[in-house]
C-alpha cells in the first residue's frame, strides 16, 4: 500500500504523458492531465494521513521518502495541477481562436503541451518526494528541461527568448547547486558516511555535527544560491518574469504555485542540515539577504510595471521573498506560517494567472494600459481577478492575511524586528503598486476608450474551479483545520 501511494504521484503523470504521446490531444484524452492531478492529490492526502499516524515512509532505500513536508507539497501539487489541468482545454481552445482550423500544427502543439505538462507534474512530485540530494537535484533540473518548451509554446520571438533565458539561467543556477552537493558529499564521505548515505537528507541531518564547518559553509551557500535560482530568489531571478509572462497561463499557474515552492523546500531541507552543523546564524543571514533583496527588487519593478502577466510574476517574487524571510526566522510559528503562506499564495496566484489568460484572450493584449473598465464589460472575469488579487494582497478573510500576521509576530518574537519591518514596508509598496495597476484595469467607464464587450464570458465549467479555489483560500484563512496538524508537524521538522 505504501509502495503504491509513493509511486502513484510519479507513475500517474508519466502514464498520462504516454497517453498524449500515443494518441495526441483529443476529446477523450483532454482530461488525462486532470486525472493524473487528481491521483497526485489523492495520494498526497492518503500519505498525509498515514505519515501523521505512523511517521515517515521510505521506499527504494530512502530515495523516495514521504514525510509531512512531502505530503503537504504533494497535496499542493495535486490541487494546483487540478486547477491548471481542468482549465487547460478551454485555454488551448481559446489560444488558437474560434476560427482557427484544427490543423496539423495545432494538433502537434497540443499533443506536446499535454505530454510536457504531465512530465512536469511527475518531475515536481519527484522533487517533493526526494529523500536524497541527488534525486532532488535531478528532479529540479528535469523540471527546467520539460518546461523549456512549455515556456516557448507560442513560438513567438518573445516566447523563444524567454525559453532561452529560462533554460540558461536555471541550468547555471542548478549547476551551482550541484557543486554544493558534491562539496557536501565529499565532506560527508570524509566524516565516515557510506556512499549511499552521504547524500541522504535524514542521515546527513543526523550526522551534521561531524561535518567540517568550513566546507559545509561553502556547500550550503552554493546549494541555497542554486536552488534559490529556481525558487525565484535574487541574484539568479531574471528568468522569472520573462518565463511567467510568456508561458501559457495554466503553466504560469503551475510554475508560480508549485514549482517555486518545490525548489524552496529543497532550501529548507538543506537548511536543516546546515543549521545542525553550523548553528542557525549562517543560513539566517544568507536567507534574510536573499529574501529581502527579492522583496526589494519585486517592489521596485512593480511600481512601473506595464504588463499584467509580468506584474503577477513580480508579485510571485515578492511572496517568495517573504517566505524566505520567514524561513530565516525559522521558529516553529514562522515555519507553520511559511507553509500556510505557500498554500494560500499558490492557490490564489494560480487563479490570478489562469484568469489573466482569459483576459489576454478576450482583450488580445497583456498591457495594463490597454485594458480598461473590465468590471463593467466582463463582471465575472473581473470579479474573480479582483478577488484573487485581494487574496494576494493579504486582505482578510483570505489565508494570506493570517500567515502574514503570524510571520510578523514570529519575526518580532525572534528578535528580528528590523528585517521584518523592512520586509513589510516593501510589501506595502508592492501592495500600493498592485492596487493602482489593477484598479486601472478593472475600473473606468466602458464607453471611454475600452474595447466593446467580449462575447465569450467565462462559462460555468471554466468558472467553477476558479471560484472553488478562492473559496478554499478564504476557508483556510478562517480555519486551517484540514491541514493545520500536517503543517504544524512539518514545521516542527524544519524548525529548531
Amino acid at each position, binding site marked *: 500500500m505504501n509502495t503504491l501511494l509513493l509511486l502513484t504521484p510519479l507513475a500517474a503523470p508519466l502514464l498520462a504523458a504516454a497517453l498524449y504521446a500515443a494518441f495526441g490531444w483529443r476529446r477523450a484524452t483532454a482530461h488525462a492531465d486532470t486525472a493524473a492531478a487528481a491521483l497526485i492529490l489523492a495520494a498526497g492526502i492518503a500519505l498525509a494521513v498515514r505519515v501523521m499516524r505512523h511517521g515517515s515512509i521510505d521506499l527504494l532505500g530512502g530515495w523516495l521518502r514521504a514525510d509531512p513536508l512531502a505530503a503537504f507539497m504533494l497535496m499542493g501539487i495535486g490541487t494546483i495541477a487540478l486547477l491548471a489541468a481542468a482549465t487547460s482545454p478551454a485555454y488551448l481552445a481559446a489560444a488558437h481562436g474560434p476560427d482557427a482550423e484544427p490543423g496539423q500544427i495545432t494538433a502537434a502543439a497540443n499533443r506536446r503541451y499535454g505530454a510536457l505538462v504531465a512530465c512536469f507534474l511527475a518531475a515536481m512530485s519527484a522533487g517533493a518526494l526526494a529523500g536524497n540530494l*541527488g534525486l532532488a537535484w535531478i528532479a529540479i533540473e528535469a523540471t527546467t528541461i520539460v518546461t*523549456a518548451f512549455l515556456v516557448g509554446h507560442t513560438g513567438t520571438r518573445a516566447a523563444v527568448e524567454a525559453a532561452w533565458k529560462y*533554460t*540558461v539561467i536555471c541550468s547555471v543556477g542548478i549547476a551551482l547547486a550541484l557543486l554544493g552537493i558534491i562539496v557536501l*558529499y*565529499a565532506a560527508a*564521505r570524509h566524516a565516515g558516511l557510506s556512499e549511499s548515505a552521504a547524500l541522504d537528507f535524514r542521515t546527513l541531518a543526523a550526522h551534521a555535527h561531524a561535518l567540517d564547518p568550513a566546507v559545509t559553509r561553502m556547500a550550503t551557500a552554493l546549494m541555497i544560491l542554486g536552488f534559490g535560482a529556481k525558487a525565484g530568489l535574487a541574484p539568479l531571478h531574471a528568468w522569472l518574469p520573462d518565463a511567467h509572462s510568456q508561458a501559457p497561463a495554466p503553466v504560469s499557474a503551475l510554475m508560480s504555485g508549485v514549482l517555486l515552492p518545490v525548489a524552496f523546500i529543497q532550501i529548507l531541507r538543506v537548511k536543516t542540515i546546515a543549521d545542525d552543523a553550523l548553528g542557525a546564524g549562517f543560513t539566517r543571514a544568507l536567507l534574510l539577504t536573499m529574501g529581502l533583496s527579492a522583496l526589494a527588487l519585486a517592489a521596485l519593478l512593480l511600481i512601473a510595471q506595464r504588463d499584467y502577466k509580468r506584474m503577477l510574476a513580480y508579485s510571485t517574487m515578492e511572496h517568495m521573498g517573504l517566505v524566505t524571510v520567514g524561513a530565516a526566522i525559522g521558529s516553529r510559528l514562522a515555519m507553520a506560517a511559511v507553509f500556510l503562506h505557500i498554500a494560500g499564495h499558490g492557490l490564489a496566484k494560480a487563479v490570478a494567472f489562469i484568469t489573466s489568460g482569459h483576459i489576454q484572450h478576450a482583450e488580445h493584449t497583456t498591457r495594463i494600459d490597454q485594458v480598461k473598465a473590465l468590471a463593467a464589460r466582463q463582471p465575472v472575469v473581473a470579479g474573480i481577478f479582483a478577488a484573487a488579487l485581494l487574496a494576494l494582497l493579504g486582505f482578510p478573510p483570505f489565508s494570506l492575511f493570517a500567515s502574514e500576521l503570524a510571520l510578523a509576530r514570529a519575526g518580532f518574537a525572534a528578535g528580528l524586528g528590523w528585517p521584518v519591518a523592512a520586509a513589510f514596508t516593501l510589501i506595502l509598496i508592492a501592495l500600493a503598486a498592485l492596487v493602482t495597476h489593477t484598479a486601472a484595469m478593472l475600473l473606468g467607464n466602458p464607453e471611454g476608450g475600452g474595447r466593446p464587450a467580449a462575447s465569450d464570458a467565462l462559462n460555468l465549467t471554466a468558472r467553477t474551479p476558479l471560484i472553488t479555489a478562492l473559496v478554499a483560500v478564504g476557508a483556510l484563512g478562517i480555519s486551517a483545520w484540514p491541514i493545520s496538524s500536517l503543517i504544524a508537524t512539518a514545521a516542527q521538522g524544519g524548525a529548531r
Partner: protein
Amino acid sequence: MNGDAELLDLAAGAFLLAAVGVLWRRDLTAQTSLLAVQGFALAAIAVILGADQAHPELYAVAAGVGLLRGAVLPALMRRAVAARATDRETRPLMNVGASLLSAAVLVLLAYAVSQPLVRLLGTASARALPMGLAVALIGLLILVTRRKALSQITGFLLLDNGITAIAFLAAAGVPLLVELGVSFDLLLAVLVLRVLTTRMRALFGDTDLDDLRELHD
C-alpha cells in the same frame, strides 16, 4: 603512486588548459575541438583515479564521460556550428587580453576558495581540485561575457565539466546512479538549447544574444 600523482596533475593541467584555450580562441570550430579535448582529459582523470584507488567502477564512468563529453556533446556543437553563417564570436564584451587576465585571477581565486576542502581531504587528488573549480569559474566568465548563443552553451559545458572534475577529484565521483542522472540531464539540457538556437535563428536571423531585447522592464 608518485607516478600516478604526476599523471593526474598532467591530466588536470590539460583539462584547465583546454578551458583557457576556449577563452582565447574566438573561432567556434576551434572551441568545439578544445571541448572534445577537455572531455577526454576528464575521462583520463577518472581512469587514473580508478587505477590509483583500485575502484573498477570508475572505468565504466570514465568510458561514459569520455563518450558524452568527448564525443557526443562536441559533435552536437559541431553540427550547430556548421549550420551557421558566421562562426566567430565577433563582439564579446571583453577582449582576449582582458579575458586571459581574468582567467588568471579566477585560477588564483579557485585556489584560495577551495583551500578548506583541500585541507580537509588532504589526498593527492584533492590537491588538483582547484583546477576543476577554475574551469567552472572560466565557464561562468564565458557565460557572462560572450554574446553568441553557441558560446553560451560552450560556457555552460565548461561549467559542468569543471563540476564533474571536482566530483572526481574530491570524492572519486558521486554514486553511479546520481552520475547517470546528472549526465542524462546535461545531455537533455544541451539538446533543448540546441533546439532553441535553431528556433532563434529562424526567428531572429543570427543568434546574437544582443538581439534578445523583446523582454525587459
